[in-house]
């Protein structure tokens, strides 16, 4: 299946992406499978959304979809059906924290 992902500006610049990206997922669409596919397609993003060593989501990075905050759900929980079907994007959002 194809999942749509929207990245924050700095990560789009880093990956040389304009607009949304689409990643192809084998099996269930979860946070982990989508981020794995994203990092496979764009290796320069490794370590930017999840810490490379711990695989923990970075504190200032949040994951939203379908007007819900998915940040604290299990990385292996199924994403909403709308995301899995490509109707809605998974949003990677940088926290509004100044700096």
């Amino acid at each position, binding site marked *: 299946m194809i999942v749509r992902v929207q990245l924050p500006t700095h990560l789009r610049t*880093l990956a040389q992406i304009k607009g949304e990206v689409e990643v192809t997922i084998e099996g269930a669409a979860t946070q982990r499978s989508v981020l794995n596919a994203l990092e496979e397609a764009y290796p320069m993003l*490794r370590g930017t*959304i999840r810490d*490379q060593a711990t695989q923990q989501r*970075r504190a*200032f*990075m949040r994951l939203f979809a379908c007007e819900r905050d998915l940040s604290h759900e299990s990385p292996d929980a199924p994403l909403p059906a709308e995301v899995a079907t490509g109707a809605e994007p998974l949003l990677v959002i*940088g926290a509004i924290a100044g700096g």
Partner: protein
Amino acid sequence: MSKVRVLVGTRKGAFILTSDGKRENWQVSGPHFAGWEIYHMKGSPADPNRIYASQSSSWSGQVMQRSDDGGATWKVVGNNFAYDGVPGTHQWYDGTPHPWEFKRAWHIEPSLKNPDLVYAGVEDAAIFRSTDGGQNWQEMPGLRKHGSGPHWQPGAGGMCLHTIILDPSDEKRMYIAISAAGAFRTDDGGETWKPINRGLRSQFIPDPDAEVGHCVHHIAMHPGRPGVLFMQKHWDVMRSDNAGDQWTEVSGNLPTDFGFVIDVHAHEPETIYVVPIKSDSEHYPLDGQLRVYRSRTGGNEWEPLTKGLPQSNCFVNVLRDAMSVDSLDKCGIYFGTTGGQVYMSPDAGDSWTPIVRDLPAVLSVEVQTLA
């Protein structure tokens, strides 16, 4: 005719300043990596067009960039800085154990001979090595396994390994410094390390003469005389004449011996530079007067250099990696400030002029002298 390329890392991007050997007219390129902190950029002595840049963000972690065309274009290389084995813990600010966690690379030191060999000093403190141009990184675990690692604790800026000096006369010897653990030396290519902090005194630790725990801000060495080191410490300017085995204080007549940066003239190994700031809580020049202090005698006797530098209402800081020298004749000295100015002296410090004055806060300055 020779050229000069100045690599400037700032809080919000990288800038590259270039000039011919006259150092009068400068071109400013940037920002590269706009919006990201660039803790350090450094070119390979073996291939000056090979430049490494450490890019980081509180949001998005660490990225390592490499240019093979003198900074015109960049590509992301590897950023997997995984500690060797079980990382364990070090001391936190409150004295409790805290897990070792990679945050960013503070300092990049390319090999003197091999453009694909490069070292990185990182926070939390460790030294990593890449033998493939930055694509893959391996920790050199002998440093943290020296035994004192669990007792290291962060300074105000974090527990960073911020200084790496390669000995040009001995490929197996290098020096590093960690805030706030101290200085260490390896004589066997990084397999084993020993603390070299004898002679340092730090009143803020339980034993002022302890083997580790000293807040070393920066170390400098003249490449022609690698056994002599100069150190700017949290307080005190120090000198060692035996590769760090023993240090003596050379603060002399400095108005304050607190500061971050220290560097050595390219051709005069007894001529050194510091930028004193008022105190550990007031990180700005005394009386708002930005003054570089120069010693022509390897310390103890210092003269203020003021010509061209603001002498009123100046409250910027000069961070530990934000001074560098070129190797032209006369030697050029460069430093960047937290106010976004990059000052340059074409005459070994006698007079100064800003190359640029409104950049984001400057974190690092490195100079390449090009043929």
